[in-house]
């Protein structure tokens, strides 16, 4: 049974149909890559799942629950974590504090009053920082981290959140080759424990981490399959025409 299911999802931004009857089904434990030409609606697809964009039609089912019209924090509490394309961490807080905020076990105002910001879960948070290679920066402000480190911090924050489903929007954007490799390693480590839906452009990265790839075009699901299947799909070739096929994406 699939963990996440999108059925005929429609999203409109002042008349523009970003998603036009988008269908997608992701099984528990799967690492799914979502690709497509610019403007295909990949980011919108992630936005609509985590509640950032409003659903204008269709249903989003997560773990058997229709979450189409839930508020963002309710969706997050059900177990969906989001990494944004532009890394968004709390720049004035330290790495540790960032992870602590993400480590959301109790969401209530009064429940959290009794928890010390400095002491609670310090060991677990430090392990998480270690996982993404940020142990040295554990007590530094996130604002001074490099671009790559910020991306990893945000991934670690999703792990801290312990989301069942991770939505990663271009986790390797702006990374050097070495950083991309490290990110791929990280994704592989998370595979299995978390179900992941990754939007990416970097085909090398996708080949390294992905099993099944879903291709989007003009707000719809165009094709789905392994890397080899996708590369030989005539429909996909047509969609990417002019940009040198999927390799040039």
């Amino acid at each position: 049974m699939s963990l996440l299911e999108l059925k005929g999802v429609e999203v409109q931004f002042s008349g523009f149909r970003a998603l036009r009857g988008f269908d997608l089904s992701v099984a528990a434990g799967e690492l799914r890559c979502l690709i497509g030409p610019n403007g295909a609606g990949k980011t919108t697809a992630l936005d609509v799942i985590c509640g950032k964009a409003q659903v204008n039609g269709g249903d989003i089912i997560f773990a058997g629950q229709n979450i189409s019209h839930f508020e963002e924090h309710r969706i997050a509490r059900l177990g969906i974590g989001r990494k944004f394309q532009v890394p968004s961490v709390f720049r004035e807080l330290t790495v540790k504090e960032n992870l602590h905020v993400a480590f959301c076990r109790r969401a209530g105002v009064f429940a959290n009053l009794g928890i010390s910001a400095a002491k609670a879960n310090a060991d677990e948070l430090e392990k998480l920082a270690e996982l993404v290679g940020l142990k040295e920066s554990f007590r530094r402000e996130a604002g001074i981290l490099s671009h790559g480190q910020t991306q990893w911090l945000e991934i670690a924050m999703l792990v801290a959140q312990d989301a069942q489903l991770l939505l990663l929007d271009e986790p390797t954007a702006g990374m050097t080759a070495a950083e991309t490799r490290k990110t791929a390693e990280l994704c592989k480590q998370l595979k299995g424990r978390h179900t992941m839906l990754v939007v990416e452009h970097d085909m090398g990265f996708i080949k390294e981490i992905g099993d099944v790839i879903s291709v989007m075009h003009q707000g719809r699901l165009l094709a789905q399959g392994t890397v080899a299947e996708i590369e030989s799909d005539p429909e996909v070739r047509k969609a990417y025409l002019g940009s040198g096929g999927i390799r040039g994406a």
Partner: protein
Amino acid sequence: MRRIFISRGHIIGYAAFALAILVVPLFIDDPYLLNKLARYLIFGILAAALALSWGYTGILNLGQAVSFGLGSYCMAMTLKLHTIPIQTGAAGLPDFMVWNNVKSLPWFWEPFHSTAFAVVAGVAFPVVVALLLGWFVFRARVTGVYVSIITLAMLVVVNLVIVDQQRFTGGFNGLTDLADLKLFGIDFDPYSGATYYLIALSLLATLMIGEFVVRSKTGLIMQAIRDDETRVRYFGYDVARYQIFAFCVSAGLSGFAGMLYAMVMAFASPTFLSVQISLSIVIWCAVGGRESLIGSALGAILVTGIQGGLSETPAFLNTWMLIMGALFVAVVLFLPKGLISIVQLGMARLAGKKISALAEDEAPLPRGHKLGIG
């Protein structure tokens, strides 16, 4: 390591501050001066309350004088009802009601015969008002400058209502000729040491409550909201609830400060709900350091202290406002995190030396090391 040391520094800082405000009366023989100092400490409470909502949560409340004013009226109402009968009408009817042809005590004045009720109401009423306003504002995801505009508008509305309802509120004149508060057999004469100590302890209690909140995980989430409100939602927190909480705690503390102010001034008037007071609180926080509770409180005491000192010195009678203005501009330009950042920077330097001597691998970066506008 850094955090422990910072909190040790915190402890030292707080101990020094507590000692300073508690021993001051021993060296002061002038009741007028003592009364004035007590007033400055009340402003300290107000500034710490704003630091909680502005500095820590990013809610620039320009209507904080609403909470302050409502608190002061709650206290003034009970003190008015306890004024010796000679100044009141039949059945203890307050004098201004007699002048305004009010025949009997309005229903909402009745419970204020009880001092205990007034003390509770002085905190609870501002909290309820903040809760209602906060519910509408933060549920609707109003942010930034629009929150400031709405709170400012709220202040003007409440002020107008109080001025307009002269029959029940005393209008422009407010509530004057108040009795002293008598609690637990102590007479809190506005010019007495007892009142000063009540206020000093209230300020310390405020700071402790504030520190308790900001050092908790709730406080951490408040700071995350200040940084990036939207991002916090995707971790599963209901942002509006945290904002309403900070807004209400701030309102409750301000209401309490208002009660103390009515005692010290021995009157309450619409000037307590003025835009001027609201803006002054913002200036105190900015000068002291809005991201520090004790910094904001010190900012209030310092600014109002210098203001009082200068305005009463003949040599500065014409120029004191100019000097204050120059001081604000200088602090905001060169110390965007307020005067407290000097102390924090110094402390972090000290801590840095100590720690790097102990362990080389952990280079501490002081929280206030950035001097850019944050």
